């Protein structure tokens, strides 16, 4: 096995092996468990950095393993996959830190962190999948690994939320499986190829290909929470805050959105998809989801629910960018994959801090919270402004590229959708910021668990992750042209993988 084959395997193992080890650790081995978690997360960052440097220099990484004659698990670390891998790896470290603080002294931590590591392993597998078969294997593994996390609290509510989550995702998986095997029976392989690999079936199989496209997109659309397949997401909010961050920013919805990107670009190919007339309906569904999620977010008083509907809306930006015919929209969608992840995890960390520190679960309880918890609220505000697309934020960059992409593709209506969504975002985020900063605090908080200690408004491990992710979002917004920025990487993907020329 050469080094270029070994490296992707090591990236997978850096979360898989610590995860398996954590499962068999006794509950009281707190230090060893934390050590294993952090060792895995840091090792993964180092390994992924090596991949990033290599891929930028034009190296290719990957390995394959046959599970049956003619059926292979194929892993490759290409530029597109690495965008997602890097996002998940960095956010995994922050989310792990946060979870260690959040679950201090809570029961079942071995189980929690074991499945947490499995989730990240599945996500990395999805990102590195070199064919649809491998993608499906890890996509379903992700479903299985998240179930115990959603059910973690063990309350009847958690049971209900986990059941709904499974019903949606397993049905989606069945659709995906049907689509993949159907496609394989026509093409005899499912390897992701630049520009797609179904063009050879045309002309003659138009309706079959449309049906397969619908099955595949419905399959990944469940995790991407595209309306009307989004019903699980608000219900899954019963999970602990680190899990919400994992579901919304690091793993689950991102896996769905990433699947849409792979299917449109590397299974069908953007030209074939356009020729089959599939992109406009996809863009229309994405636009509808953007508006739908934003409108529902307006009416939620529970903070986490409002954020959940906001996720539904924001993830479809990625889908919209993918469905826009042209390089500019592609870049907008890809860059938003990263931007949304960083901003949304900040918001969930902050929401978790309010709940853990002061017992605040509702928007209506947030009056004056900025004075009690200034650092958390600054992080929350930065991320919320980014979501609205305020100038100089990461969100503004995503929206600018998406808007330009829509105009360039001759889909002027999409620009109106983006504008309307920005206004709606402002309508549901600005009142929160107003309450937090400008309304007087109540005489007592709903349930104060953690008292202020000097400058520390809450537990240190709860405070650091949102500040770090907020800082990242700020940097992405202020320095978009930097070598290490997601935008630069997204442009490289568009140039290199799709042969598109970017302005």
């Amino acid at each position, binding site marked *: 096995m050469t080094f270029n084959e070994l490296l992707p395997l090591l990236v997978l193992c850096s979360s898989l092996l610590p995860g398996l080890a954590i499962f068999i650790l006794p509950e009281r081995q707190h230090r060893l468990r934390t050590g294993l978690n952090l060792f895995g997360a840091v090792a993964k960052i180092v390994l992924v950095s090596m991949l990033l440097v290599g891929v930028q220099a034009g190296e290719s990484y990957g390995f394959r393993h046959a599970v049956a004659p003619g059926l292979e698990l194929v892993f490759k670390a290409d530029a597109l996959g690495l965008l997602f891998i890097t996002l998940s790896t960095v956010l995994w470290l922050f989310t792990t830190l946060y979870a260690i603080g959040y679950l201090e002294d809570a029961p079942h931590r071995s189980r929690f962190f074991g499945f947490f590591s499995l989730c990240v392993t599945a996500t990395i597998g999805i990102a590195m999948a070199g064919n649809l078969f491998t993608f499906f294997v890890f996509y379903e593994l992700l479903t299985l690994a998240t179930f115990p996390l959603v059910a973690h609290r063990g309350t009847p509510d958690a049971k209900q939320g986990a*059941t709904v989550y499974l019903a949606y995702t*397993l049905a989606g998986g069945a659709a995906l499986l049907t689509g993949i095997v159907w496609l394989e029976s026509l093409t005899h392989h499912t390897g992701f190829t630049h520009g797609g690999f179904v063009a050879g079936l045309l002309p003659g199989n138009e309706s079959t290909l449309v049906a397969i496209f619908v099955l595949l997109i419905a399959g990944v659309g469940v995790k991407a929470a595209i309306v009307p397949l989004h019903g699980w997401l608000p219900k899954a909010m019963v999970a602990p805050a680190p899990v919400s961050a994992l579901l919304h920013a690091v793993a689950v919805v991102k896996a769905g959105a990433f699947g849409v990107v792979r299917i449109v670009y590397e299974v069908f190919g953007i030209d074939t998809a356009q020729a089959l007339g599939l992109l406009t309906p996809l863009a229309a569904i994405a636009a509808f989801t953007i508006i739908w999620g934003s409108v529902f977010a307006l009416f939620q008083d529970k903070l986490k629910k409002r954020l959940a509907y906001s996720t539904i809306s924001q993830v479809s930006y990625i889908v919209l960018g993918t469905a826009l015919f042209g390089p500019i929209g592609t870049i907008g969608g890809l860059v938003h994959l990263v931007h949304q992840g960083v901003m949304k995890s900040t918001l969930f960390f902050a929401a978790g801090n309010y709940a853990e520190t002061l017992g605040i679960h509702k928007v209506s309880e947030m009056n004056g919270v900025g004075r009690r918890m200034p650092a958390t609220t600054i992080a929350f505000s930065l991320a919320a402004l980014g979501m609205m697309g305020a100038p100089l934020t990461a969100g503004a960059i995503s929206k600018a590229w998406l808007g330009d992409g829509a105009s360039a593709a001759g889909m002027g209506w999409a620009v109106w959708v983006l504008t309307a969504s920005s206004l709606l975002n402002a309508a549901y985020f600005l009142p929160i910021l107003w309450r937090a900063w400008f309304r007087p605090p109540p005489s007592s908080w709903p349930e104060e668990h953690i008292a202020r200690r000097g400058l520390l408004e809450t537990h240190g491990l709860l405070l650091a992750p949102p500040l770090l992710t907020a800082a990242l979002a700020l940097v992405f917004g202020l320095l978009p042209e930097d070598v290490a920025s997601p935008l630069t990487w997204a442009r490289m993907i568009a140039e290199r993988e799709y042969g598109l020329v970017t302005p």
Partner: protein
Amino acid sequence: MIEHLTHLALPLLILLPLTSAALAFALGPGRGASLVIASSALQLLLALLLAATIGSAGPSHHAAGGWGAPLGIDLVADGLAAAMLLLTQGVALALFVFARGYFHQDSQDADHWAPAGRYFWPLASFLVAGMNALYLSEDIFNLYVTLELVGLAAVGLVASGGGATQTAAALRYLFAAILGSGAYLLGVALLYGSYGSVSIAALTPAIAASAPAVTTVALVAALLMVTGLLIKSALFPFHFWLPPAHGGSPAPVSALLSALVVKASIYLVLRLWLGPLQPLLAPFAWLPAILGASAILWGSWQAIRAERLKLLVAYSTVAQLGYLFIALPLAAASTTGVAPVAIVTLQAVAHGLAKAAMFAAAGIILHATGRDRVSDVAGIAERLPLTLFTFALAGVSLMGLPPSGGFLAKWLLIDLALAQGQWWLVAVIIAGGLLAAVYIFRVLRQAFLNLPEAEIEAEHQKARVVPRSAEWAAFALAASSILLGIFGGVPLLQLVGGSV
């Protein structure tokens, strides 16, 4: 040396368990258990050796007592038989380790075993001897004899619990088994009358040669044999005896029956249907497929409705056996990809491992809680995490989710069905997976529920301890059903695909 040992592997695979069955009876359960476990470990090595030899050098023969056919009895093993032998020895070994812990903790001191535990060792070892003989037999009359050996040992195991419901279940099972083997024997007699031989090797060309003008007698004979075997295989609608027998027995017995015993008669259906009886039965190929599809839907539905945990697992067996039959019409048509028989074998092995693990896990859960309703598993995630993990991993394979052996088999089955344009089979397979998810997650989500503090205390008070060895043996089975999907597919499919 190795070559010589391989030559001896065939008779040893029958003689070893037979001898240890007799000795276990004489020695009693304590030392008997150790002996049976040691013997199965040796058998597993022999089966591995046999599979390796067949994989590289082709089928293996042994003429018992030096007398070859047609005078003597020939023992023959090809890739398919080797795979089934391997499954049998592997599952039996793990289940015996599990059973020692499971039965032992029933009683306080080593000399006091419950009746089920006392009779388990000789009967189970005898059962394994019968199954090994079945996989190694080459003529349809010997197959009848081995079928009866397996059936009687299995009925004995079901009855060994001694309760009224278990005796009733055993009687019902006995009735079905005798009906099945009777029909089969009648068919064998009629075939012998028509073709003058019971050797599969001799019958295959003879029947093929007479195929254009099939006599009614030969046709009736073939149908009788297959129907008898289908009754013994519990294919819907002949499944009536299975849920009480499998759901009511002690856990190690249920696991042996569900994972291994039903596979023996299904193996015979495959072997005969795709072998000598092919020309006679070709027009009926759709019948088992339709029955198999009905079994998947009906069995899953009953599992979803079952209130008792072990009954749920037993109905899951009814459903899962359906998958083994729906490939029959697909197997008849020639295909270019993976051999259909190999896919069915993969499914059988995956189900064998997963179902043994699941019954074992269910047994541990019942022992710990002392109650057997699905609603009673609440709080198990806290008390028996390893066992719940075992149950879940086995469930992953049964649902056909990756990366398990069940998934790989299902993927290949769908591929096969699509290649022949059989969309309704694709729909059944997909629906079966979703229904399986419903009944398995019914258990899992209940297990994650927290119990109120007071109840936890009460549960711990009356909890009976299950030995760690039993928990880990069950886990090993479940883990193998998962690893089969990643590392076992290629060798297994090549072993079986190359030989049939």
